[in-house]
């Protein structure tokens, strides 16, 4: 306990970075996923193909690989950006593929009669999607999206591999007896307390997120 309280500010800062990373990347991923999902149900085959290719690229590539690719590979083509930005971009691209699948399966739960009725009263494709299909689809994909949010929260720990000071990386450095923020040596090298503390953090936030997601899912579910 002494070890935790002495380094509490460092750990809290790292936990905050983890939360920021996961929320930011999930928000961007949500936008990407929504666009790709609409592509995948659009009447235009080229767009459908593009959406399918994007999803299969993201679903069939490991996230740690993407992270390394973004950090070591892409800078050869463009400007150097910080590890944090790379992490947000790569995580949102990755989670975007999964979000697209979740929303698409939500779209497929909307009964055909809804779209037919929308067309019958003269709505265009984009109006049908925006006002009739998407609101329902979104609500019925809340369950999978909640799971994804939770998974994303756990996955962003991968960003530690490219030097982002999130929780898992920070607790590891602390455990080796170094303060990652100042770079100075601590008087002790105790890996277990820090690992346990971050374990507890993941448990608490993970359970909370799952509980909230389940609540929302039950509340928003469309009765059919």
């Amino acid at each position, binding site marked *: 306990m002494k070890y935790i309280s002495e380094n509490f500010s460092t750990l809290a800062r790292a936990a905050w970075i983890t939360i920021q990373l996961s929320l930011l990347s999930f928000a961007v991923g949500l936008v990407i996923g929504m666009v790709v999902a609409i592509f995948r*149900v*659009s*009447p*235009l*085959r*080229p*767009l*459908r193909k*593009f959406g399918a290719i994007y999803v*299969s*690229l993201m*679903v*069939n*590539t*490991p*996230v*740690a*690989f993407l992270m*390394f*690719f973004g950090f*070591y*590979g*892409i800078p*050869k*083509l*463009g400007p150097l950006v910080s590890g944090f930005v790379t992490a947000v971009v790569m995580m949102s691209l990755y989670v975007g593929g999964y979000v697209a699948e979740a929303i698409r399966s939500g*779209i*497929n739960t*909307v*009964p*055909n009669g809804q*779209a037919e009725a929308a*067309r019958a009263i003269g709505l265009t*494709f984009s109006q*049908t*999607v925006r006002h009739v*299909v998407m609101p329902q689809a979104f609500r019925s994909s809340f369950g999978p999206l909640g799971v994804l949010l939770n998974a994303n929260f*756990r*996955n962003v*720990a*991968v960003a*530690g*591999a490219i030097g982002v000071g999130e929780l*898992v990386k920070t*607790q*590891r450095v602390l*455990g080796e007896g170094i303060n990652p923020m100042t770079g100075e040596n601590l008087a002790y090298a105790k*890996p*277990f307390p820090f*690992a*346990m503390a*971050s*374990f507890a953090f*993941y*448990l608490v936030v*993970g*359970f909370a997120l*799952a509980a909230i997601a389940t609540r929302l899912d039950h509340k928003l579910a469309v009765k059919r």
Partner: protein
Amino acid sequence: MRVSEWILAPDLSHAGELQLVEELGPRARRRAMIATAAALALIVGGLAWVVLRFKTKHQFDSQLWAPYKSWGSWRFLIYGLGNTIKAGGVAALLALIIGTTAAVWRSERGTQRPREVIAGLAIFFGLLAAIPAWLNRTVSKEGKATGVSGNWKAVAVIGVVVIAAALLRFLRIRFKKTLSATYVEVFRACALVLLISFGFILFPRVLPHHSLKFYAYVSLVTGLTLYYSTVIAEVVRSGIRSIPSGQTEAALTIGLTEGRAMRFVVLPQALRRALPNIVTQVASLFKDTSLGIFVTYEELTKRAQISGEFGGNNLQSFIVAGAMYFAFIAVLTTIANRLRAQQRR
């Protein structure tokens, strides 16, 4: 017009599901064509821009690709993929066994009582807290036994176990159900990276005098097994729950015990039903072997990075490795999708 027919052909792979458009009229067709042209222009433009970036940054230069014209670099990466499969395969097997067991134990009839939840957490955190204590014992074994003598320790341990067992019995806590539920909920909520790096600090202390490679392998496999066994447990359990209760009742009626009804009647059906999702999770497990980079395990991602640093061709190495990953994982994903489609029929 052939092209327009191709572009506007309805998506027959999802026949019976939501159809967002009907046969288009002439005006809508023209608009759809324009939209397609614009979208294609954007996509092709984007790709062309990337290619141009490659060109201007000299990433097409032949010396950067040269390593992949010979066998050596390929072999280096293929061995990396071999390591990926070695870790992922073992972890997948263990996760399947443990996960199915946990699912069966957790499916014991009746809901979990609050006192069972509390008991489960107590057991889990008790074990967790015991790890450092136990490790201190290993570390200090150099000298003579200090403090309480060995005999008394053994007596104390036996006493604690007996009291705990009596307590569980007295409170009518179903041990298997409680244990599996706690196990699944706790490890499912933990970041996989944390589990893997936790193993990397734990194993050198528990099993001293091994090589770094051994520790890397063991902690990667342990982490993957712990996490994915919980995921597979949930998948299998939802399979078990999807089997109508009439199956169990019929099995009990013809005289099977509850355990046998589960083993011979419910579980085979449940596993078959859960198979597509199990394969998806195994694919995901193989993807997550790339987290071996956290414990210096030399699987494909790590090897691609090494190869890139060594040859100064990071981008090229990652492109080759990415293609290998894609080819490997896509096979599993495709199998899962096929199975899913088969079941839907």
